[in-house]
């Protein structure tokens, strides 16, 4: 899984299977996509309300909860006023029917 190797020590955004978004620095990973993130925050979007951000610190995300993880342009990221951004709640990945 060399794809994640190139993300080590970088800040990444992670989307989880329950539709949450996390931002943190990738310290480690393994073949099951388990992730270790430091300085983690969770960002919660809403269509009407202001964006909420929660500080979490050191986080381990279990691999089977990971949808995707990406490195991003920190300049663009820092220039955005996240409280003003609105978005829909992401769906989960379970399709029961």
């Amino acid at each position, binding site marked *: 899984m060399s794809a994640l190797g190139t993300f080590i020590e970088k800040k990444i955004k992670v*989307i989880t299977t329950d539709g949450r978004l996390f931002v943190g620095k990738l310290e480690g990973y393994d073949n099951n*996509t388990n992730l270790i993130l430091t300085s983690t925050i969770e960002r919660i*979007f809403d269509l009407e309300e202001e964006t909420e951000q929660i500080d979490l610190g050191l986080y381990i995300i279990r691999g089977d909860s990971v949808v*995707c993880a990406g490195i991003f342009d920190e300049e663009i990221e820092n220039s955005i006023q996240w409280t003003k951004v*609105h978005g829909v709640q992401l*769906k989960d*990945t379970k399709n029961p029917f």
Partner: protein
Amino acid sequence: MLFFSFFKTLVDQEIRVELKNDIEIKGTLKSIDQFLNLKLDNISTVNDETKYPHLIAIKSLFIRGSTIRYIHLNPMLVDANLLQDASRREALANSGNRIGR
């Protein structure tokens, strides 16, 4: 191993991935592994951009294979006959492993 080899031939091509949470992402395939995890560069979301700010500013995206529903491909990149033959050979190889159980 069949589709792992198949997707290796598509590295550097543009593909569109539809995930199980209904997000659709277009990008250039840069890497694939045996779990069919993908890494895409040059990402853009196909759905309404204003609804999905989650992926703003992302340069390179790792997608866990298990969360993929579909991958849309350019038909010119797919050799139908090659794929069909490979499926037959793969099926034969798999049945060979079961004889004598």
